[in-house]
C-alpha cells in the first residue's frame, strides 16, 4: 500500500504550477462552465488551450503518435488535480474534443477522419472545438430512446430532429452526434449511430438557452434535412450504442479535477476565515473540517479508480460512485462556503465586482453550477442506479 505520488509526478506538479504562474492572471480562480459565457472568456480559454497544446498537455492522455503526451496514469491524475485547483481554462476543446471525440476517433474512426479532426483538437485550433449531441427533449436519462434520425440517401445522410442542452454548441465547429439510423428495431439500443456534423451545415439552427443565473452554457439545435456525407459516420452503422458507451467511459476523471477545485475553494475559505476572524467561530471550524474530510475522501476514491484502470482491472461502477459523491461534495462546498461568506454569498455571478464578490465569486458560482453538474453527464440518481445494478448486483428497479 502506498498513497503518495512519486517524485516524477511531484516534479510534474511543479512544472504545471510554473505554467500557471506564467500564464494565468495573479490569483485567478477558473470556474467550471464559465469559459463559454462570453467572447472575452472564450478568447482567453482558447489562448491557454494553444499554450497547453505546445506542451502537449492539452492532449496529455493521448498517445504520442496522435500528438498527445502519452502520459502515465499518475501524471494524468496530477494534471487533472492541478487543472481543477488552478481552474486552468481551455482544456476541454469544447465538450469534449480532448476527452472523448479524439480518443473515440482513434478507436473507431477512419484514417481520413483521424487525419482531418485529430490534429485540430491537439493543436487547440478553433476548428478543433466540439460539442456533444446526445440529449433530446424526450430522451435524457433514457438516452437510448433518442429519436433524431439520419436517413441514408445516396452518399449522404439526411438528418432530422432536435437536440437540447448541447453545451458549447455556440462555440463548436463540429458536433459529435448520436442519432438513429435504423427504425423499428427490437430494442431501443439498436439502430443507433455516431455521426460527425459540421456546425456550419445548412439546415442546422441553433437557439441559445440561458440558465436562470443568466449564463449561456447550453443550446438547443434543430436539424432540418441536414445533409452530411456518409464518410462522416464514425465506426459501424447501427452499432452506435456500444461506441457511445465507450465514449461515455472517457468522461471519467471529472471527479479528479472537481476534487482539485474543491481543495482550492477550501484553501481560499480557510484564508478568508482567517482574515475575517471567522476562523475562531467553532461552527466555522467544524464545517471547514467536515468539508476537508469529504474532499480527502473523494480524492482517495478517485485515485483508487485511476489505480484500478492503471492496473488494467475492470472498472465498472467506480466512475459512477465518484461522480455521485462529487455531485454531493460540490453542493456541500457551496453550502459551507456560503455560510462562511454570509451576507456576501448573495452576489450576482454574472457581474462579479471585486468590491462585493468575495473569493472572486467562486463560491456563488459553485452554489448555482453544482446543480447543473449534478444533472450533466447523467444525474446523481442515474449514477446510483448504475452502482446498484453493476456495483452491488441488485435487480433493476425500473
Amino acid at each position: 500500500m502506498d498513497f503518495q505520488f512519486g517524485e516524477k509526478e511531484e516534479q510534474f506538479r511543479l512544472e504545471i504550477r510554473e505554467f500557471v504562474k506564467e500564464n494565468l492572471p495573479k490569483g485567478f480562480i477558473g470556474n467550471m462552465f464559465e469559459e463559454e459565457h462570453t467572447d472575452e472568456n472564450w478568447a482567453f480559454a482558447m489562448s491557454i488551450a494553444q499554450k497547453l497544446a505546445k506542451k502537449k498537455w492539452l492532449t496529455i492522455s493521448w498517445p504520442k503518435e496522435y500528438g498527445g503526451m502519452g502520459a502515465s496514469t499518475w501524471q494524468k491524475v496530477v494534471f487533472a488535480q492541478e487543472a481543477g485547483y488552478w481552474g486552468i481554462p481551455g482544456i476541454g476543446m469544447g465538450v469534449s474534443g480532448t476527452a472523448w471525440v479524439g480518443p473515440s476517433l482513434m478507436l473507431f474512426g477512419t484514417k481520413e477522419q483521424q487525419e482531418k479532426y485529430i490534429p485540430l483538437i491537439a493543436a487547440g485550433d478553433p476548428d478543433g472545438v466540439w460539442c456533444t449531441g446526445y440529449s433530446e427533449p424526450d430522451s435524457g436519462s433514457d438516452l437510448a430512446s433518442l429519436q433524431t434520425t439520419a436517413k441514408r440517401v445516396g452518399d449522404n445522410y439526411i438528418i432530422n430532429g432536435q437536440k437540447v442542452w448541447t453545451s458549447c454548441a455556440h462555440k463548436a465547429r463540429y458536433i459529435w452526434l448520436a442519432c438513429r439510423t435504423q427504425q423499428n428495431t427490437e430494442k431501443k439500443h439498436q439502430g443507433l449511430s455516431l455521426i460527425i456534423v459540421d456546425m456550419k451545415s445548412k439546415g442546422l439552427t441553433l437557439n441559445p438557452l440561458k440558465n436562470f443565473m443568466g449564463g449561456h452554457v447550453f443550446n438547443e439545435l434543430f436539424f432540418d434535412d441536414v445533409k452530411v456525407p456518409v464518410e462522416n459516420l464514425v465506426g459501424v452503422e447501427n452499432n452506435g450504442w456500444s461506441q457511445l458507451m465507450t465514449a461515455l467511459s472517457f468522461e471519467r476523471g471529472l471527479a479528479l479535477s472537481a476534487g482539485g477545485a474543491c481543495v482550492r475553494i477550501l484553501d481560499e475559505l480557510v484564508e478568508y476565515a482567517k482574515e475575517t476572524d471567522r476562523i475562531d467561530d467553532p461552527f466555522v471550524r467544524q464545517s471547514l473540517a467536515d468539508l476537508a474530510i469529504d474532499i480527502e475522501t473523494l480524492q482517495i476514491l478517485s485515485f483508487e479508480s485511476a489505480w484500478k484502470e492503471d492496473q488494467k482491472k475492470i472498472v465498472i461502477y467506480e466512475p459512477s460512485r465518484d461522480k455521485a459523491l462529487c455531485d454531493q461534495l460540490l453542493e456541500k462546498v457551496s453550502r459551507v462556503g456560503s455560510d462562511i461568506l454570509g451576507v456576501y454569498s448573495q452576489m450576482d455571478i454574472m457581474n462579479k465586482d471585486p468590491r462585493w464578490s468575495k473569493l472572486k465569486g467562486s463560491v456563488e458560482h459553485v452554489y448555482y453550477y453544482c446543480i447543473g453538474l449534478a444533472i450533466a453527464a447523467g444525474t446523481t440518481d442515474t449514477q446510483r442506479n448504475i452502482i446498484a445494478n453493476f456495483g452491488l448486483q441488485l435487480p433493476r428497479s425500473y
Partner: protein
Amino acid sequence: MDFSLGVEQKLIQKSVREFFTKECPKDKVRELKETKSGFDSKMWKKLVKLGYLGLIFPEEYGGTEGEFLDLMIFMEELGRNITPCPFFTTVALCGIPIVKFGTDEQKKAILPKIIEKGHIWTLAQTEKKANNYSNEIELTADLSGDNYVLNGTKLFVPFANSAKQILVVARTQKGKDANHGITLFMVDAKTKGINIEVIPTAAKDCRCEIVFKDVKVPKENILGTKDKGWEIVDYIFQQASVLKAAEMSGGCQAVFDIIVNYTKERKQFNRSIASFQAIQHRLVDFMGRIEGLKFLVRKAACEISTGNSSARLNSMAKASANKIYHDLCYHSIVLHGAIGWTEEMDIGLYHLRTRSLLFDMGDVHFHKEKIADELQFHSPAFKEVYS
C-alpha cells in the same frame, strides 16, 4: 500509488478472519455479554500463542516487529467480527507508548509479559469532564518519599476489571497550561486503595469506574518524563484513533454485507426488496461512504507505517468512522424491518457498540477541531504560487 494490500497484510487478513470466525462466532459474542470478564480467556490465550500480541513489537522483546499496517488490518478484522477482547487496550493504548517512551528496563520487564503471557493492560484517562482534553485530568499524584500517592476517579476504563496493569494519566502539577503537569504511571491493578466497578453499558463491554484512594506507586513506575505526559497521551491518540477507526471500518464492512444480503433475499410484493429504488439508493450511498472510509483509514495507517504520521489524516479517519457507523447501523436495522429489531439478528450487536466506539479516541467534534487546527496552520498552494 498502490491501493492493494501487501503480501503480509493479506496473510494477516485471511488468518485473523478465519481465527475470529472460528473462535468467536456471534453467539459467543452474545454469551460473552453476560459474563463478568466480557471476553473469552481461552481465545485470548490462543491469540497470545499465535503471537498476535507481539505483532508490531520489537523482536528483542519477543515481538515480530511487523508494520503498523499489519496492526491496522488486524483491527479491521477484529471490528468486522466485533470480537470482545482487551487487545486494543493492551496493544494500542499501552504497548505502543511503552515501546516509544519506556526505558529499556521497563520494556524488558513489561513487553515479554504482554507478548508471551498475555498480560492485560488498560489506559485510565477519562474523568468526569470526559472531553479528551488535558483539562479533564484531575486525578492527583503527589510525591511522598519514594512513592507517588494517587487520588481520584477514572471513568469508562475498558477491561480494567481484568487488567493486570493500568496506565494512569495523572496530574502532578497544576498550573495555567493544562497540558503541563501531567504524568503517566504504570500501576499494578491489585495495589491497595484501588477499587474497580463495572459500569452498566449497553454493549456490556466492561467499561469500568476506578476509584484511587491513597494508592502508592513507586516513582520508577513513571512512563516517560514527569509532567510531560500529555505528549504521550497525544502520541497514543494519534495512532489509536486510526486503529479504532480501522475497527469501525471493519464493522461497517460487515454490517454492509449483512444488509445487502438481507435485502437481496427478503421478498415483498413478489420481488426482492433490493429491487426497490428507495432501498438501492440508500445502499449505494453507504457503499461509497464505506469504501471512502476504508481507504481513508488505510491511508492514515500507511503514513504512520512509513514514519509520516499525519495528525490531519488520523483525525479524519476517526471522524469519518464516527460519521458513518451510527448512520449505517440505524438504516441497516430499519431496512431489515422488525426482524432487525430482535436479539436474534447480529446487526443489533453492532449497533449496541455504536456509542462506545464513537466516544473512544475522540468524538466527531473533537476530531474536527483537530482538523481545523491543521487547516488553520497549513500554507495553501495558491498563496505560494501567487505570492
